[in-house]
């Protein structure tokens, strides 16, 4: 029983949280700086890439998913998959509405 409890939940310590905090602050600084530079087509892509990196760090470490069960990972994977389905099918509709009419 004791052994089970010890294995059950990995406790993430302050050291990891501090490192992630600074990574997130750095990412925020980076994305604001990048928005002041004119990169044309690349501006939104870089902003979203940095946002996704920050979100991934939050999910993996602040939300402990890196140390979570496979069930939790699968649940999150299903959520992300549904969201991407929503985006891609909606955009596929709007992009293809004028198909052949130009």
């Amino acid at each position, binding site marked *: 029983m004791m052994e*089970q409890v010890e294995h059950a939940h990995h406790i993430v310590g302050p050291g990891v949280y501090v490192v992630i905090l600074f990574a997130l602050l750095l990412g925020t600084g980076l994305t604001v700086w990048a928005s002041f530079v004119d990169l044309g087509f690349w501006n939104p892509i870089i902003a979203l890439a940095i946002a996704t990196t920050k979100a991934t760090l939050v999910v993996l470490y602040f939300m402990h998913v890196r140390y979570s069960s496979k069930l939790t990972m699968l*649940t999150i994977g299903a959520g992300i998959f549904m969201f991407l389905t929503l985006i891609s099918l909606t955009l596929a509709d709007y992009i293809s509405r004028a198909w052949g009419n130009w």
Partner: protein
Amino acid sequence: MVDSSQIAQVAPEPAHEEHAAYLRHHFESVEQQADAAGFAMWLFLVTEVMFFGGLFTAYLVYRNWFYAAFVAGSHQLNVFWGTLNTLVLIISSFTMAMGVWCAQTRRRSGLVLCLTLTFLLGLGFLGIKTIEYREKIEKHHVPGFHYSLQSFMDPQSEPEVYSEYHDKPLAPDMAVHTELYFSLYFLMTGMHALHMIIGIGILAFMILRARAGAYTSGHTTFVLNFGLYWHFIDIVWIYLFALLYLISRHQ
């Protein structure tokens, strides 16, 4: 055939086994109970992903349709306040994560301190949001509420915005769609702020309970799952900040 005499003869329940006081009887172990609660919390967060996902999808579609209006609308947002709010929220996520650690390692005063800091940073976020909302009201940028197209049909009337972006005046049929931008702006940041307000309310409740030692005696599920909720709100803001404030600055 079961009759009452048979039921009466059934052996009495086995002696009550030793277990933590907070273990519900329909779970086999504390570990299983915590896993079930965590799984349920993640299922809830997945529904939240789909809820905000719908709003993000609407924003994406309309931004592509009325691109010029969305760029001009975005130029009305103040990057300084947006950045400050992002920093406030990231630091509040850090204090919340530290709170979870304090609960897990049974540090009562540390937990109360972390929860209180998270509470105050959450209020700070809403305060900064209020400053931004007030500016929108003063400029008549609230959809359906004395909405004014002046900023978009005559950009030079606002020297502080014009000097930074040099926007060209929009044609009237495009300028009207800036109202759609601000509809989505208020809907998305408003729903986000509502989640913050609910979170701050729960934090106040948790601070009172934590002072009485509620989460530092081994039963950390509530703090853990509230942490997941708080970090999720942080993630939503990370994307809102990028999409609403940043990506249109140079377009």
